């Protein structure tokens, strides 16, 4: 046994890789600070408890990744993540059935009021950015960029079919086919707020709760236009053409990791949120540790599942906020 241990220890000094794989005992002795491994002080204290999370299906992949990693460190904390949608998640949060609620849009006034009535105080944390990507068919060679006004002109219902030529002169006289996420989704809510401004969406639009249906719709029709989360564009890059959107400074910007993180891709970049029950953070060590773990690892995990991380200082700021709530 002894020579083996000596060998392990010497290897430990040499390579960080071995550090990750070696036994716990040696691990705590040699933590030199790197990423997720030693981030939470959770390594020492084994916590117990149940954490119930629900909400947006857009945020779900991040939440799933966080829960997966957290449970490797704290197997006795039973974390469950649901995908009832942003609105459905808040309903459960208000009923006190969940400790965390994921959202792909900021909380609405009536939801916030209902929480106040229920005596639930909450804190909003941002996890990552998503760039709503406006896409057209691969064969569409006329659209080079779009302004917010042009988007509004085509997407808002005016009672008649919209042709490409109505948007800009010189574009083909073909009817535009619209593909949009369903009205229950936070993605629709965000688009509604920024582009439609509460006006009725074009009645000819195909609405679907499944973004893959939208991807297929736009892929199959040369006159189609649609929008959805950046991850869906990224995955179907080869079959779709993304439209650069003119931002506030008059520059046409394509969504990608840099432009979304820097805020250059606007106004269609949106933060993804999680709302945490303050009382749960204060009273339940497991929830506090979980929230901390979430903020510490959100950047890496969000990118893993196709989202864009926030600038580092944002996470640091939010971790400070969390400290104040404990």
């Amino acid at each position, binding site marked *: 046994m002894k020579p083996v241990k000596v060998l392990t220890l010497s290897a430990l000094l040499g390579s960080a890789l071995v550090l990750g794989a070696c036994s716990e005992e040696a691990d705590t002795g040699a933590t030199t600070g790197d990423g997720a491994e030693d981030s939470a002080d959770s390594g020492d204290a084994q916590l117990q408890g149940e954490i119930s999370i629900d909400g947006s299906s857009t945020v779900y992949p991040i939440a799933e990744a966080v829960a997966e990693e957290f449970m490797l460190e704290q197997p006795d904390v039973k974390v469950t993540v*649901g*995908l009832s949608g942003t609105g459905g998640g808040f309903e459960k949060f208000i009923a006190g059935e969940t400790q965390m609620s994921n959202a792909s849009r900021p909380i609405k006034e009536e939801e916030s009021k209902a929480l106040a009535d229920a005596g639930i105080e909450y804190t909003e944390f941002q996890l990552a950015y998503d760039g709503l990507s406006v896409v057209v068919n691969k064969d569409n060679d006329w659209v080079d960029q779009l302004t917010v006004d042009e988007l509004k002109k085509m997407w808002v219902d005016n009672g008649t079919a919209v042709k490409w030529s109505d948007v800009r002169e010189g574009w083909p006289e073909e009817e535009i086919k619209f593909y949009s996420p369903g009205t229950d989704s936070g993605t629709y809510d965000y688009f509604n707020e920024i582009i439609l401004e509460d006006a009725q969406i074009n009645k000819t639009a195909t609405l679907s709760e499944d973004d893959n249906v939208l991807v297929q719709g736009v892929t199959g029709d040369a006159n189609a236009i649609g929008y959805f*989360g950046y991850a869906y564009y990224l995955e179907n890059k080869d079959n779709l053409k993304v439209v650069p959107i003119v931002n506030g400074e008059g520059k046409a910007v394509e969504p990608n990791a840099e432009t979304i993180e820097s805020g250059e891709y606007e106004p269609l970049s949106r933060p993804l949120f999680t709302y945490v029950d303050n009382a749960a953070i204060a009273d339940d060590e497991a929830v506090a540790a979980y929230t901390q773990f979430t903020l510490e690892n959100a950047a890496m995990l969000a990118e893993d599942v196709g989202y864009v991380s926030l600038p580092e200082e944002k996470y640091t700021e939010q971790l400070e906020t969390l400290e104040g709530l404990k």
Partner: protein
Amino acid sequence: MENTARVKAEEMVGRIDGRLMKNKAIKGIFLTATVFTSIILIILLYRIISQGAPYLSWDFFQNFASRRPEQAGIKAAVVGTLWMMSVVIPTAAILGVGTAIYLEEYAKKNALTSWIQMNISNLAGVPSVVFGLLGLTIFVRVLGFGNSVLAAGFTMALLVLPVIIVAAQEAIRAVPNELKEASYGLGATKWQTIYRVVLPYAIPGIATGSILAFSRAIGETAPLIVVGIPTFVAFLPSGYLDSFTALPMQIYNWTSRPQVDFHNLAAAGIIILLGVLILMNSVAVWIRNRYQAR
């Protein structure tokens, strides 16, 4: 004379031709219908199996859900579905068959029972989301079961109950009256008659109807979503009040993900679901054959 007879004979031959043509045409329509349905079924199965089969491995059964498709497994969903069905099957069977026996054998045929009868038949057509809302209000909130195995199991049991009642009633009604009368004639009580004569005769029908209903409970997603069953669960339930996830939830989640690998995992999940269904249906066939042979 001879001429007219010949004309008539020709006319008749002509009509026979027409009828034979019609006969062939109708056969053709039915054949087309069968071929069409079979082709769709074959395409569906082919697509699912070709997509999902490469992902079926021992690890797939051993792992919990994961953000990495190659590490994602279906353990929690399979075990969760089995736990849920262990609530659904006894609850729905006892309530359903009990109701059917009462309505057929004990209840007087009056306006009230026919009104109840009508409502049961109507309930069978109510969308499953509505049962989900009912379950959310009663089991999750009022009775405080939370999003547990018990709450989901009871909700699903309610969902399939009308189908089981109607199927069991049909089966009980098909028991020949002579058999029952013979039993009474020998001095048997009502319960003895039900237990020894009616049920053994009706069981194949009851089993077939019930198993079809349970298959529906395994595949339904909507009520589970409404009840608030989570999708990511990395532990197995250890009691009926624990959280869990079920096969349709996991499949639904995987199909809506952007990455193609997850779509393939969904196909693998569907193969598992089909496997469970086939297993259940074979149990139904086995029960039917066993009791019919008697």
